[in-house]
């Protein structure tokens, strides 16, 4: 009986919270709403240490905070969200920590593609961005399953950066462009229409016409599935981007609240959006110029 009353009270509280959020988001929507918000989820381990939690508990608390933030973003009307889940640099951490994090990621990917998850509730399509070949087979296969399972969703997009760094992304794009230009040139050569594209052997100077432009590179970036972010939020008050979306963040507001990731809440998102709205004209002007 007591449990029933508690459940009902909890539901009422949730409905009230949802109603209050709708009112706040209606007011916020009078101004420009960011189309894409990216998150660097910093501070999970420090949170666990601060609260004297077991290893891994900080990351689990961080996952709950992430689900809330994504829910708020999609309710507000932010169509694209990107999260920095695991950097290539993180592979240098202690093996047991990497293993534990990978186990958590695997577990949460499986949760995401369940029928009743937030992903299906908000029609979210999931992409995994990064050098996925660096991941263990179970995690890689789970990521591929999640991308296939959500390929029919079209309301919102969640990009999860896994085994990712911007420098690796740029190198990958350069590699793909070079491979593409080579294939184009080889195809032309085989048809006898080299168009000046001559591959000479030895040390002779080639007549290769390099033609890679910025658009070619952007086409091959991992993050090409979404537009450039409008806001990048990094928690813990850290002011660096740590090799995250460097190419895409040229005209992006960088917001660094001094709280640990599991402590992030609705008010931080509201504050970031207000800051974005305050600087919208300036950032829009800069985007046009570039």
């Amino acid at each position, binding site marked *: 009986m007591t449990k029933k009353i508690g459940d009902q009270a909890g539901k009422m509280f949730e409905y009230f919270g949802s109603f209050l959020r709708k009112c706040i988001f209606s007011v916020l929507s009078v101004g420009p709403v960011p189309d894409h918000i990216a998150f660097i989820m910093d501070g999970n381990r420090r949170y666990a240490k601060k609260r004297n939690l077991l290893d891994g508990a900080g990351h689990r608390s961080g996952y709950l905070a992430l689900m809330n933030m994504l829910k708020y973003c999609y309710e507000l009307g932010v169509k694209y969200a990107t999260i920095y889940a695991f950097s290539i640099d993180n592979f240098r951490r202690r093996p047991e920590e990497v293993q534990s994090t990978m186990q958590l990621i695997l577990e949460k990917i499986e949760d995401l593609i369940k029928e009743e998850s937030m992903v299906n509730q908000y029609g979210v399509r999931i992409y995994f961005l990064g050098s996925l070949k660096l991941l263990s087979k179970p995690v890689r296969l789970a990521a591929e399953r999640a991308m296939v399972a959500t390929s029919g969703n079209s309301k919102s997009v969640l990009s999860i950066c896994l085994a990712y760094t911007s420098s690796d992304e740029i190198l990958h794009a350069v590699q793909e462009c070079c491979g593409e230009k080579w294939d184009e040139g080889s195809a032309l050569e085989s048809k006898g229409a080299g168009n000046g594209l001559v591959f000479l052997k030895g040390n002779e100077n080639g007549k290769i016409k390099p033609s*890679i432009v*910025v658009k070619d590179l952007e086409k091959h970036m991992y993050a090409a599935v979404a537009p450039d972010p409008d806001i990048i939020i990094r928690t813990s008050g*850290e002011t660096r981007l740590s090799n995250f979306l460097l190419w895409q963040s040229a005209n992006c507001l960088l917001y660094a609240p001094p709280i640990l990731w599991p402590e992030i809440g609705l008010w931080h998102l509201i504050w970031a959006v207000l800051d974005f709205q305050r600087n919208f004209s300036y950032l829009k002007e800069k985007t046009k110029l570039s």
Partner: protein
Amino acid sequence: MEMKHRSFLNGLPGVEIWVFVHFGSFCILPSPYGISKVLELLQWVADIGVKSVCLYDPEGVLKKNKEPIMQRFSSANLSEEAAVNGRLVTRRNLTLEFVSFEDGKEAVAKAANYLFVKHYANGTKEKSDFTEPQMAEALGAIGSGGADPDLLLIYGPTRCHLGFPAWRLRYTEIVHMGPLKSMSYGSLVKAIFKYTMVHQNYETTDALVAVPSCGQKFETSFHPPPFGIKENYHVIHLHFHLFTLFGEFNLMKNGS
């Protein structure tokens, strides 16, 4: 580079200050208040001991109008008397680098072409992936190389790096200093000091800067900051590259 000076701090006569400063670079993005503010800021930076400065201007205005800055910072060193009197030697011969938006994405495209020519020119497609050192070499070859800044100070209305070369921004601390018109020596020193307390996740041993322990307040006058007192202070290694960005710059509007 090692410099030894008598202390100028009140109440601490005779304490020697040891400062090892790497020839860091300081990147500045201009705002619409003219070159005079830029020169003033550069002077402060030079007084702190930074040896080379990188000026970032998205539109490339400073690149095209760099003569006043070059002239100001090309004079000889001060006399030895200044050093003996206990003030840090003010270096006026800064190494200056001018960077603009085209040194970002466009430069990477040029580097991609460079790599294509270099690795595909022999008529065979190389199977190995490009590496970061190869990319860095390619950027250097096309004239857009340079050290990664450790600290990026943004002078402008908002905290946004405005297309600073992505390749050089990987682990850079990005600090928003506010509009250039409101710049102050104290906030500059505070930003640098705050940076020295940050735990960096990569190994760099190019510079050693002795910094005060917690609780020390810097003077906000134009005297050089107390960078390093040997006893009772933390000594940390830094790769001391400073960059500052200005939001926008308009030489025509402000005369200069």
